C-alpha cells in the first residue's frame, strides 16, 4: 500500500504545510484560519489557530530552517508568523495587491518568499533589517492573467510561475543587498530583478502546479487540458516535452527525484510520471492500484467528473447511491489540490510526500516499497 497514513483533519482543506521535523502540520480548513496540529499518541491535537486573515487562506508554507510560517490569503495580504515562546506572532506583509493572493512559497535560502496573485502580478518579499519590515517588490508587467503557482529554483534567484493565461514563465528575482553578487549563475548571470528569462508557451488552457527538479535542471507544470509539460535546458533554447494522459487534469506536481514526478488533481488518485534513460517522460501508472476498469459505464464517469468539478464533497446529502463510484475505493474521495514533499534534510530525493484535498484528508504516501518505481528514484 502506497498510502501509509490517512488523517481526516477538516471538512475540506485548501492547503497544508509541514513543520521542519514533520511532527506538526499546518492546514487551512477552507476558511480564514490556519490550524496547526501535532501528532500525540496516534491522535492529532490542535495546538494553535492562526487567526489574522479576513478571507480564505490560499497558501501556506513553513520554512525548514528558520521555522517561520508564511500565509497568503484572498484578503490580499500575507503574514509571516514567528514562534515566540508558545505563541505564533504574526507580522503583516503589505503586498500592494488589488486582487487575491493565490499561492506562496519560501525561497530555498528562506530570505525571500514569492506570492502569486489574481492581480496578474508576482510579489517577491524580503526582510529589511533596519525597518524591521517585510518589503514586497512586484513583477507587474508580464502576466496576462492570474498567477496560480510559483516555484523557486534551487539557486534562490530564478522563480518559475504558472498562470491562467496558459503560460509558464521564469524570472530573475535578484535583489541588491539581499542576494550576494556571485549567486547569479547560468542563464541568469547578469539579469536584474523582474527580468524574464524565458516564456514557455506550451499550453492553450490554464496552467497550474509548476515545480523545479531537485537539481533545477528540469521544470514541470500542468495544463487544465489533461497535459503535463516537462522542460529541460530552461534558458534561451528550452527543450520541451508534452505528455497527454487519458484522465482528468492535474492541479499540482512534485519531483520525487530527477526522473520521477507525482501529479495530483481531479482524478483523486496521484499519478506517477517517469523519465526513461533517454530522458523521455511518460505516464507510468496511478499510485493506487485499486481502480476498477472503466467498462462501458462511462456515463456515470461523466456525472462523477462534473460532481468533482463543482467540488461536491462526499458529505453531500441524498446521493449515497453514487458514492461508491465517485470515491472509486481510493483514499481520497474528492479532488486533490495540494501535494507537499516530506524531504529528509540532506537528501535530494523525497520518497515520502503528503496530499490534501477537498475531502479534508491529509494522506501520507511512501514510495519505498513500490518496486517498479525504484529504478526511477
Amino acid at each position: 500500500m502506497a498510502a501509509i497514513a490517512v488523517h481526516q483533519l477538516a471538512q475540506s482543506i485548501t492547503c497544508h504545510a509541514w513543520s521542519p521535523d514533520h511532527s506538526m502540520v499546518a492546514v487551512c480548513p477552507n476558511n480564514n484560519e490556519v490550524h496547526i496540529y501535532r501528532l500525540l499518541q496516534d491522535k492529532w491535537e490542535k495546538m494553535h489557530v492562526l487567526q489574522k486573515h479576513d478571507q480564505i487562506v490560499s497558501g501556506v508554507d513553513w520554512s525548514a530552517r528558520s521555522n517561520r510560517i508564511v500565509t497568503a490569503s484572498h484578503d490580499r495580504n500575507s503574514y509571516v508568523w514567528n514562534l515566540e515562546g508558545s505563541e505564533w506572532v504574526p507580522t503583516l506583509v503589505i503586498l500592494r495587491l488589488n486582487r487575491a493572493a493565490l499561492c506562496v512559497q519560501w525561497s530555498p535560502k528562506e530570505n525571500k518568499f514569492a506570492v502569486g496573485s489574481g492581480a496578474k502580478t508576482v510579489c517577491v518579499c524580503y526582510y529589511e533589517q533596519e525597518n524591521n519590515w517585510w518589503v514586497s517588490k512586484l513583477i507587474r508587467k508580464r502576466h496576462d492573467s492570474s498567477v496560480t503557482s510559483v516555484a523557486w529554483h534551487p539557486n534562490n534567484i530564478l522563480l518559475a510561475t504558472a498562470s491562467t493565461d496558459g503560460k509558464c514563465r521564469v524570472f530573475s528575482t535578484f535583489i541588491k543587498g539581499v542576494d550576494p553578487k556571485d549567486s547569479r549563475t547560468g542563464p541568469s548571470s547578469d539579469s536584474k530583478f523582474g527580468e524574464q528569462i524565458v516564456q514557455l508557451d506550451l499550453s492553450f488552457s490554464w496552467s497550474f502546479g509548476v515545480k523545479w527538479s531537485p537539481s533545477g535542471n528540469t521544470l514541470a507544470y500542468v495544463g487544465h487540458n489533461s497535459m503535463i509539460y516537462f522542460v529541460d535546458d530552461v534558458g534561451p533554447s528550452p527543450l520541451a516535452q508534452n505528455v497527454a494522459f487519458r484522465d482528468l487534469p492535474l492541479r499540482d506536481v512534485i519531483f520525487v527525484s530527477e526522473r520521477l514526478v507525482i501529479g495530483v488533481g481531479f482524478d483523486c488518485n496521484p499519478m506517477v510520471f517517469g523519465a526513461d534513460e533517454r530522458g523521455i517522460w511518460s505516464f507510468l501508472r496511478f499510485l493506487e492500484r485499486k481502480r476498477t476498469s472503466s467498462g462501458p459505464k462511462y456515463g456515470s464517469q461523466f456525472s462523477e467528473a462534473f460532481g468533482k468539478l463543482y467540488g461536491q464533497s462526499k458529505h453531500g446529502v441524498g446521493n449515497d447511491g453514487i458514492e461508491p463510484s465517485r470515491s472509486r475505493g481510493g483514499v481520497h474521495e474528492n479532488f486533490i489540490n495540494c501535494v507537499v514533499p516530506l524531504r529528509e534534510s540532506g537528501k535530494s530525493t523525497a520518497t515520502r510526500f503528503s496530499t490534501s484535498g477537498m475531502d479534508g484528508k491529509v494522506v501520507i504516501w511512501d514510495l519505498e516499497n513500490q518496486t517498479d518505481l525504484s529504478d526511477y528514484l
Partner: protein
Amino acid sequence: MAGTGEFVEADNAEAIITRIEHKSRKIESLLKQYKPVEALKTALEGSPPNTRDERCKSANWIVVHRAIMAIKDVDGMFSSLDPEYYDILMKYLYRGLSTGDRPTCDQCLRIHEKLTERAGLGCILRSLADTVNTV
C-alpha cells in the same frame, strides 16, 4: 510552436482551400476502394486548426464529415486508427454534434462512445479546453 502558427497565418487561405480540394478527391477515391479508415486519416491530416479563416475550417469540416459518415464498423475503425488522431477526431466529433443534424449526431455519438473508452476523459478535456486551435 509560435513558429508554425506564423507559418500558417502567412500561408494564404486560397492555398489551404486548394489543398483541401485535393484532399477531398483523394478521399473519394479511397472510399470507392472501401478504405474508410484511410479516408478518415487523410481527412484529419493537415486540418487547419491554426488558421482563423472560417472558410478553411468549414471546407475541412465538409471533408471530415464525409469521411466520418462513411464509417460503418466503429470498432474496426479504432483497431486501425492510431492514437495520435484521437484528439483531433474528438474536436471534429464535437463540431458534428454542434450541427444538430440528426444522422450526423447519431454517427458522432456512436464514435464518441468508443473514442471515450479508448482515449479517456482527458481527450474530451483537451478538445473542450483548447480555445485557440479550434476546428
